[in-house]
């Protein structure tokens, strides 16, 4: 996956510049949304943006009425959505039922890609946004060949998306490292994977030797009625991964994560009422 500066942060800045300065943060109640929103809040504070609300829904829950009510009441310029999985179906259904369309209050999602749109209904979602490193609509020979091969193997109705592409190039990078050391030994491969590069469907990716995250190109896409994304912004080159965003010290981010983990009874998701 992407580091914060390769997905969240550029998306927030793009929304701030193009959609408005008042934000509503909504996410599933586990480590990624909680951390993402901590980063987003720091970022918006630095930009002098406004957070009108921050709400979490238990993983897998369909209880979204209260949260949508708050959005309808506060009327933000944009919703930043880190909801995971099927909760999205209930959330967007409720959002539309409340009369909130992308034209009025657009949503920028961080976990909705082409494959999810098949379930959510592209027509209902058209006009909203997502931030990823890969979209099926990326032009170029490498991606065209990738999409063609995928459809040939899995069916013409299937679509490619960011997590699939990341898995695809991840295997290639691993294979290159294995070829270099002539072994599948984990510690040998971990060393050899540093500095590996690959011409992936999204563009050139590269494993950073310092933190072993991947250099990736950042993109923001607008959902189209056909279930594809129109790319509205792209970084002009692959972005170096910065695992700990600039707003706090690394030790502060580690304390933040530790406190979340402890607070949830040594789990990475809110277990809910027991």
């Amino acid at each position: 996956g992407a580091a914060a500066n390769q997905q969240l942060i550029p998306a927030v800045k793009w929304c701030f510049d193009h959609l408005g300065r008042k934000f509503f943060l909504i996410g599933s109640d586990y480590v990624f949304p909680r951390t993402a929103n901590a980063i987003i809040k720091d970022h918006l504070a630095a930009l002098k943006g406004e957070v009108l609300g921050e709400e979490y829904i238990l993983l897998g829950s369909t209880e979204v009425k209260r949260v949508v009510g708050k959005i309808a009441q506060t009327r933000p310029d944009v919703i930043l959505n880190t909801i995971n999985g099927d909760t999205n179906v209930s959330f967007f259904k409720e959002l539309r039922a409340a009369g909130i369309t992308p034209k009025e209050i657009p949503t920028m999602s961080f976990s909705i890609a082409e494959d999810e749109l098949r379930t959510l209904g592209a027509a209902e979602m058209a006009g909203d946004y997502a931030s990823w490193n890969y979209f099926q609509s990326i032009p170029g020979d490498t991606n065209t060949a990738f999409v063609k091969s995928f459809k040939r193997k899995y069916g013409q109705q299937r679509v490619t998306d960011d997590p699939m592409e990341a898995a695809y190039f991840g295997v290639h990078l691993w294979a290159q490292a294995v070829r270099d050391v002539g072994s599948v030994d984990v510690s040998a491969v971990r060393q050899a994977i540093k500095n590996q590069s690959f011409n992936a469907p999204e563009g050139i990716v590269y494993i950073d030797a310092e933190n072993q995250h991947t250099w990736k190109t950042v993109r923001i896409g607008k959902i189209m009625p056909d279930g594809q994304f129109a790319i509205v912004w792209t970084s002009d080159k692959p972005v170096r991964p910065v695992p700990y965003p600039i707003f706090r010290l690394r030790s502060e981010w580690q304390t933040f994560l530790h406190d979340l983990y402890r607070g949830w009874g040594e789990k990475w998701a809110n277990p809910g009422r027991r």
Partner: protein
Amino acid sequence: MRILKKNSIATQLSLWFLLVALLPLALVTYMTYRSSENSLTKEVMNSLIAIGQRQSNQIEAYLRERERSVTILAHSTAMGDAMEKLERVFYTKGPNAVARPDVEREFGPFAAYYQEASGYEALYLIPLDGDIAFSTKGGRIFGINLRRGPYRDSELTRVFERSLMSMATELSDFAYFEPAAEPAAFVATPLFRGGFLVGIVAVEINNEEVYRLVNDYTGLGRTGEMVVASKVGDKAVFLTPIRHDPDAAFRRTVPIGAKWAADVQEAVQGKKGSGTLTDYRGKEVLAIWRYLPYLRWGMVVKIDTEEAFAPIARLKILSSIIGMLTLLLVVLAAVFVARSFSYPIVRLTEMT
């Protein structure tokens, strides 16, 4: 008839002796030659990989150090204060306000010292609107708006925008920068004051140090060299002077898809590899190549096979001489032994 018989036995014995002696010898010589060639190729490749690793590590360490230095600078209170004062004067009283020299007198010496001590060409303070509010280069670039002015397509503008988008320290590509009248790259990082983003601090670096690293031929013999190139459209463009072409920088190109210089083509497309191929001069070379993400460079380290395989060529000549001498000795010995065997048999046959 007798002469024929005598010759036939001696000839047959000689031929068999030759076969028995020379076949294993030829096989052993061939296998030794191939094994030496493989060992030498592996050795040269390992040496090229080590040199490539050393050079790329040095380039990356240099650039990473530049990034760290600017990131630390941006965290100093002096920078945030200077940006605030400059911005206030710049936007309330105009770029040529009388108050501006006061701010520059206060901040200028520190900025100039930092720039010189760190080996940068210039230091810029750029508020969020993109106006260059301060430059150690002085009036030449001061006050120009990056988004609307003459440098809107420059690497300085790109790195300014990218740093604002990613909220991280960013490095630009090397490209010709008109105010510097030479290729330059920029490092930019967000600047905060009181927790609020107030702009970008950027430094300009020239390509001297990177040229020096690229043109270090230690361990590369007479013909070895390092090539760095980047992909521009459908071409790989050489970025620095190189050993065999001092005028290569920004002039020599290789079309993507050409049948030569596959090393450069693959490297600029993010591929890593090694092998024997024809280089940009049409010469056969042993090469290793890889991608350097900081500057989006493809890097090739190579050496002419003629030089790399010189020991093999010497081994080939030596093996040929030894082979010829051995052949001569074996022929003589075979004829002598065959005759010494055949003669008593022929004599005995004659007597009976």
